[in-house]
Every structure is written in C-alpha cells, then in structure tokens.
C-alpha cells in the first residue's frame, strides 16, 4: 500500500474480476447445465446408445402415450395436497412460535428445524418403519383402540407418499410463515385492539393478510421440493404410489434413456418454474400492499 495511484487501478481490476465471477457462477453452474439438458431432450436412444440427431419424438411420446400425462397430473395433485397440508399444520405452529417470548421462541424454532440436519434417506427409512404393518403408528392406533387390527393403509401406496412428504417438508413451511408473522409490526395489532376489534377480527383482517406472502412462499417451497422428489415415492410408494419422479428416475437408471428423461425433466421444470413464479408474485403483491 504505497503509491496512491495504483490502488484505484488494482481496485478496479478486482471489482471487474468480482463482477465477472458473480455472473460466471450462475451461468456456468445453472444456465449451461440447463441448456445441455434442454439439448439432450431432443436426442434419442437406440440399442443403449444416445443418438445425437434432433427430433421432437420425446415430447410427442410424453403427450401421446397414455401412461405419462395421467401420472403427471396425479403427481401435481399429490404435491398440491402436500403443500396444503403442510401449510395447515405449519401455520398454527408458526403462529404459536410468534406468541412466545425471547429465548423460547428461537429455541423452539431451532428444535423444529433440527430434522433438516438429518440425512434424508435415513428419515425416509425411519418413517417407513413407523408406517409399516408392525410399525409404531399401527401399534399405537391399535393400542389406543382406534383400530381393531393393524392396517396396510399407511405404507406402499399414495397415502404413504403424502404422509412422508408432509412430514419431511413441514420445516420448509414453518420457516417462511414464521418470518412473515414475525415481521408484522406490533403497533398494527395494538391499533386494531384499540379500535375495538376482537382477537378473531384482528387475526382475520390484519395478521392473516400480512402473513400471506410467507404462506405463498412456503407453499411454493413445499410444492417444488415435493414434485422433484423421487426417493420418497420410490421407497414408500409400493406398486400403487407411482409418481412422475419415479418415471424420471427410471429413465436415468434402469431404462437408460437420458434424452426421454431430459424431456420429462423439461416438463417438470415448466411446472416448477410456474409454481415459483406464482408463489413469488403472490407474495410480492401482498408485500407491497402494506
């Protein structure tokens, strides 16, 4: 650090480098792979080898084969249900958290987020054991006299996927809702109270509308994570719990048809991007309305 003239030059060079890096990272690690993916979706496979000639065959197959579209819609409905259930369970939990004072609030929040530190596979294994015919859930239900005998309704079907995904993804719903609830200025609630509104009125007219951006982002988080998951359905879905993620997974493994898998991924990406845009738009509109 001697000459005063050299510092701005070096600084400019650094800042140029940083700018290039800042743009290069998303381009190299996000845009380029996505472009390659899109490119692959126009190839085809013959006798276990990828043929690099462009065709729309994969997309035609996706839209015309009677297998894929129904599974696609069912999966979307399944993941919307997961998102809805997660919100219904997460909202009261997050609301309860905001009513706590000081240290308790964050201690409890941490506790709710601890499952995120555990391995995803191990969690699914554990949940599968719990849902099994001899599992904890059945034992508890029979023990409490709710069921006469253990039920096979909880595992290796769509219910199992719904339950497992909900359980796995709830933390992702709690966090954004909690943050949006926490940001609501207390003065608004007090003003509402001063003006004679009841607790329910305050909640419905102040708290709920102001927390909707959080709900929107929570819903899109959960939906996107659920629809991209293939492991959960593969492990707990059995023969009837067949989802789009499983078809996709088999294209890259068993079937060795990467191009078709890429085309299916593009279809999935469209839904995911739409979900994110909807979530964000909804969230922002409400946010600016304050």
């Amino acid at each position, binding site marked *: 650090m001697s000459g005063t003239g050299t510092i701005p030059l070096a600084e400019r060079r650094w800042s140029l480098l940083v700018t290039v890096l800042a743009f290069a990272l998303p381009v190299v690690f996000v845009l380029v792979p996505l472009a390659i993916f899109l490119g692959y979706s126009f190839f085809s496979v013959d006798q276990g080898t990828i043929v690099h000639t462009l065709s729309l065959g994969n997309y035609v197959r996706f839209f015309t084969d009677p297998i894929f579209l129904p599974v696609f819609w069912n999966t979307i409905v399944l993941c919307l249900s997961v998102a809805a259930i997660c919100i219904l369970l997460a909202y009261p939990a997050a609301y309860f958290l905001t009513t706590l004072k000081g240290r308790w609030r964050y201690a409890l929040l941490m506790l709710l987020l601890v499952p995120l530190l555990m391995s995803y596979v191990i969690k699914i294994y554990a949940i*599968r054991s719990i849902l099994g015919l*001899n599992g904890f859930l059945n034992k508890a239900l029979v023990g409490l006299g709710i069921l006469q005998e253990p039920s096979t309704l909880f595992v290796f079907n769509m219910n199992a996927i719904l339950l497992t995904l909900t359980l796995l993804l709830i933390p992702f719903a709690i966090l954004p809702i909690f943050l949006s609830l926490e940001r609501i200025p207390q003065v608004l609630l007090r003003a509402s109270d001063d003006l004679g509104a009841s607790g329910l009125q305050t909640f419905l007219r102040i708290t709920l509308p102001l927390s909707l951006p959080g709900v929107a982002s929570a819903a899109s988080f959960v939906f996107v994570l659920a629809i991209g998951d293939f492991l959960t359905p593969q492990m707990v879905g059995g*023969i009837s719990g067949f989802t789009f993620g499983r078809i996709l997974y088999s294209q*890259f493994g068993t079937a060795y048809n*990467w191009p078709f898998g890429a085309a299916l991924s593009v279809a999935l990406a469209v839904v995911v991007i739409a979900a994110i845009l909807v979530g964000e738009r909804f969230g922002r509109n409400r946010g600016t309305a304050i």
Partner: protein
Amino acid sequence: MGLKKLFLRMAAIGLGIGLMTSAALAANLRVLAWDGYADPDWVKDFTAATGVGVDVVFIGSDDEIWAKIKGSEGQDFDVFAVNTAQLQRYIKADLVSPIDVTKLANQKEVLPRFRDLTAVSGVTKDGKVYGIPFCFDSIGLIYDTDKVKPAPTSMSVLWDPAYKGKVLAYDNGEHNFSFTALTLGYKDPFNLNEEQIAAVKAKLVELKRNVLSFYTTADEAQQIYQNNDVALIWANYGQQQVKALQKIGAHVAYVNPSEGALAWLDNWVISKGVRDNAAAEKWIDFMLSKKVSGELSERTGFGNTMTETGSAAATTSWSGSTMSRTR
C-alpha cells in the same frame, strides 16, 4: 471493499481445497461393486499392503452399473464387478480393457473349473480375457416358514392370491423377465421371441398385483420384512439375504425353484478409463486371495473361485443350461 476481499479470499481457499481433494482422489483406485465385495477391512488391508488408496461406490442393480459405466464411457471407475451375462455387452461397447492374467498370481491357484478362462462362458472375447470370476450364487426364493405352508417348490407361488400384498419383488426389469420366462416353462429364458415377451409382460403385470413393494438392496428387503407382513421374497442376493434374515431371528428358508433357478457368476473387470492399470490388477489379485475369497463366502454365503464351499450355490451349477448367465 472488505467484503470483496473476503469473497476473493474465500474463492481462493475454495479453489485450493478443490484442487487438493481432486489431487488426493486422483491417486485412489475407484471401485464400483455390490455390497459385500469390498468390505472396509479388506480395503484397509489392501491399502496397507499396496499403498493404494481405494474409493468404493456400491450399486443396487445391473442397470445401475451400466448407467454409471456407460454414462461416463468408463472414465469414472477403474475396477468394477459385473456378471458374465452382462460382460459381453460392456466388451461390445468398448467399455472394458483386456486383463493380463499373468499379472494375477492368485489366478493360478483358483479351483480347476475356473482355471481355463476360455472355458468360462462370457469372460473372454477373441482370445482376450476381460473378466476374472470371483464369486457366484443362485437366485432363489425366500419364504417365511411360519406363513408359507407347505414349503413352496416353484416361483409360481409368488402369483398365489393367498399371498397378495405379502410378496417382495426385486426392482430390476431384466431378472423379472428371465425368471418369469422360466416359470412359464420357456426353454431359453434369455432369448425370447416377441410373442413370449408379450406373455411374460402380461404375467408380470399379474405379479405386480400381488406385490407389496420392490427392493434394491438386501438391507432394504430386510428392513421391509421386519416392519411388514412379508411371506415371500424373490431373493436376488440368494444366500447373502438368507443369512442376514436368519441373523435377525427371522424364520425363513431358501429354495431353488423346480423350474430352474437363475444363477450368476460375478467377475472383476477393468474399465476402459482405468487410470492405473497396475493398481487395478493388484486389487483383483488381492480380492482373489484365499483369505478374502474365503471370508467373502463366510460373510455372504456366496460361492467363490478359490475355495470349495458347502453352500447351496456350490451344488447349483451356474454353467448349467438354464441356470446361468444373469444376476
């Protein structure tokens, strides 16, 4: 400015760490194998004896091996385990390298029927050796002795409506086709005509309705067995699975079906993208050693090529007419 500096420093450190780890990994032998083929104590002994570090990746199906090897054109692994039925496909696709058998001291000590590798169907091509056989077993049926009475003799029991929702199937298209073809009485389950394939497919759809779920690894089958009402398991891992289930106190037994069982013989092969051929040869030779081969049979119940074992598999000939070629 401080932030930028910090960012740059972090990037530099990240790059440094990245380079270091890739340099460290570059020296290691990359092995792709089934569970039970590269136990940690063997890997440790191998590294102690040869100075070569090892990275093992485990797989759960033949299709997965193909996807991993073909997907990288053999560049991602040095050595992998594959069965004789699959190996020709890899040779044809130019994904494996010929092996110089003279470099494998232990290969001279193998059981007589494995000594002449040209006599072992599927491991050679044009006089070159591509695979070194090291273990084998049959694919039979595991049944719960409390739930399935009388003891089954044929795979057709898997279709029995009495066991609806109590059947565990293996997640692999190829084997399911082969064994169903055998169950339907086809003479050559590995070469089916269009009509036979359609019949097998229809039969498999029927089987699906009886199935509780599909598994890939032996551990997974065991976990599902423990938590659910499972009566029959299509046993891709043969003796290895029986052993593991009996260990946890399950009342199970194993049968080789009367219509003929599928059997397999696994080989160590060297991939096209091998980085250090000598290290790969050392690995194969080490795995062939009497100690490791014997321990492999002891732990998994599979037969091996070095020592005679009294397992059921040893009495089933993997080279027999229908009892061959696939895992």
